[in-house]
């Protein structure tokens, strides 16, 4: 074991053997879901600490482990690699990360959509048109990038009219205070933080494209098929939390504190989020024709930026199934919007 290569070899073989172990999608009764801090996902934190998730898991005789992951992208990567059975993510990330990585995924719960939470902010300029020629700091290839592309489109500009600089979301607020940053695209709570600085103007936000940036809980389709109990327990727990969240200020305060702000700060973020408190609303949203159209925009943006993988010849390479119809390749459906379980909740059958 003296030689460094020998040690390296042993260490690596341990790592490789770990990589072998991927999740088998067989019937089982132990599940792990992950979530990260975001206004629309804080209910999972409440469901975990208040015991609501456990209560519903017990009802269906399974166990559900709720894990918070600090890094959003890391949580999706973990889910994609098979370490989790379900994870919170946006519609675009669900398409470009797990679905593009060949993991058949189902949006089990459509919890909300961003209705102003994501925004384009210009320093000392008041209209989106003035962004032309500027350097724009944002998390590249994220929903921010998508929002920018949609915004530019709306004023007749294209991405080549600006210069995109990839900037970590953790450093966005500090970055905004520096001289050479003149425009940023980011999401809450960063947006409200940046808007407190004088001269910061919100010129375009996700309320201009309502219903296009959707926050969901995504479940591995095979796992869900083999274990319908998991779907029932998760959806049941979710709408119990939703009812409490809508009715009880103390619950919202708890969620606000858990996300690092207070009741006022959290309600401000909720104001720019369209929460689907009732399962019936979520079902109506998922069943609408508009969702197919939205997913088409998202798929086209993703394809233009090379996010659908090497082999993708066009935007429809990955099939996206919604109750209103399929966008893209019917033989390669990897992302599904499924209203079944939410419908059960709406009808009180859980």
């Amino acid at each position: 074991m003296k030689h460094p290569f020998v040690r390296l070899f042993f260490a690596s073989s341990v790592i490789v053997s770990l990589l072998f172990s991927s999740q088998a999608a067989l019937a089982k009764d132990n599940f792990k879901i992950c979530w990260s801090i975001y206004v629309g996902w804080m209910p999972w934190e409440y469901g975990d600490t208040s015991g609501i998730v456990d209560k519903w898991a017990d009802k269906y005789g399974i166990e559900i482990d709720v894990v918070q992951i600090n890094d959003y992208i890391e949580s999706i990567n973990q889910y994609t690699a098979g370490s989790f059975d379900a994870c919170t993510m946006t519609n675009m990330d669900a398409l470009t990360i797990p679905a593009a990585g060949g993991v058949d995924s189902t949006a089990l719960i459509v919890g909300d959509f961003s209705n102003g939470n994501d925004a384009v902010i210009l320093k000392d300029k008041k209209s989106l048109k003035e962004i032309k020629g500027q350097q724009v700091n944002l998390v590249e290839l994220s929903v921010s990038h998508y929002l920018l592309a949609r915004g530019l489109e709306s004023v007749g500009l294209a991405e080549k009219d600006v210069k995109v600089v990839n900037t970590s979301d953790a450093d966005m607020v500090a970055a905004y205070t520096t001289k050479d940053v003149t425009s940023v695209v980011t999401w809450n709570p960063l947006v409200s933080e940046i808007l407190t600085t004088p001269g910061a103007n919100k010129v375009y936000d996700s309320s201009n494209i309502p219903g296009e940036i959707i926050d969901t809980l995504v479940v591995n389709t095979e796992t869900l098929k083999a274990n319908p109990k998991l779907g029932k327990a998760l959806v049941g727990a979710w709408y119990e939390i939703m009812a409490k969240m809508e009715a009880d200020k103390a619950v919202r305060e708890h969620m606000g504190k858990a996300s690092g702000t207070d009741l006022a700060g959290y309600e401000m973020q909720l104001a720019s989020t369209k929460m689907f408190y009732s399962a019936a609303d979520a079902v109506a949203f998922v069943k609408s024709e508009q969702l197919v159209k939205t997913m088409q925009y998202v798929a086209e943006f993703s394809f233009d930026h090379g996010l659908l993988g090497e082999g993708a010849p066009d935007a429809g390479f990955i099939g996206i199934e919604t109750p209103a119809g399929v966008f893209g390749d019917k033989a390669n459906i990897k992302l599904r919007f499924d209203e079944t379980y939410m419908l059960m909740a709406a009808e009180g059958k859980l």
Partner: protein
Amino acid sequence: MKRLINKRPSKPLAVFLGIFPFLILLFLYQVGSDARKAENERDKLLPSFSEIHHAIDRLAFTPSKRTGEYVFWQDTKSSLKRMLMGLAIAALIGLTIGLLTGAIPMLGANLTPLVTAISLIPPMAILPILFIVFGLGELSKVVLIVIGIAPFMTRDIYQRTKELPREQLVKAQTLGAHSGQIIVRVLLPQILPRLIDAVRLSLGSAWLFLIAAEAIASTDGLGYRIFLVRRYMSMDVILPYVIWITFLAFLLDWMLVRTSKTFFPWYHVQK
């Protein structure tokens, strides 16, 4: 004596024993990749060798659709530029302050505690301050490298200067040299190869700071690319980049050794 501990490998066997672990590693990777691919043919965690080859081909030998640049070489160029600037500035700071404080006790007494204190500040912790002071552009990336490694080099050079035999200084003085001459003619030539050693030792941290800086705000660079495609778990891009970075680090180190041996052969005889 025919005991295991006395057996030495012949030259070709030694070469083979050196390469063998790499082969095993490649083999294990291949098996792991196949196993994951069998379950999900589009698995991204352990891409197949042909996928990696495609990724290299696309990034290094095909002009980018969006900018017309060869992404891989552009990244390499930007990163190396930042790296070399950072190393050069840090080495210069380390040499100047380290040598002067080591040679002139009046300076050393006042400066060393400050340098020690600065070297203990974790640069990543004060990153937001660095941004505000130096902006988000090229400068801040180079500054992060410099702040990360210059204090260490300064302390090292200070130590090495102190270590030089006092007799040499006495001898130079009896020959009539003044302080300036002693620093330039006696100390500096002996410190230079030690500076190269210090640079070699700080290469690892310098890369770390470079990649961290590029991950935060950037439009190109090796670290930027890794953090960009990390979002899509494109291991077919990340793995070749990591190997390339390792190779570049090795190359830099090797060139420093060569330089040292060419210009300061006496230093290597001593060792």
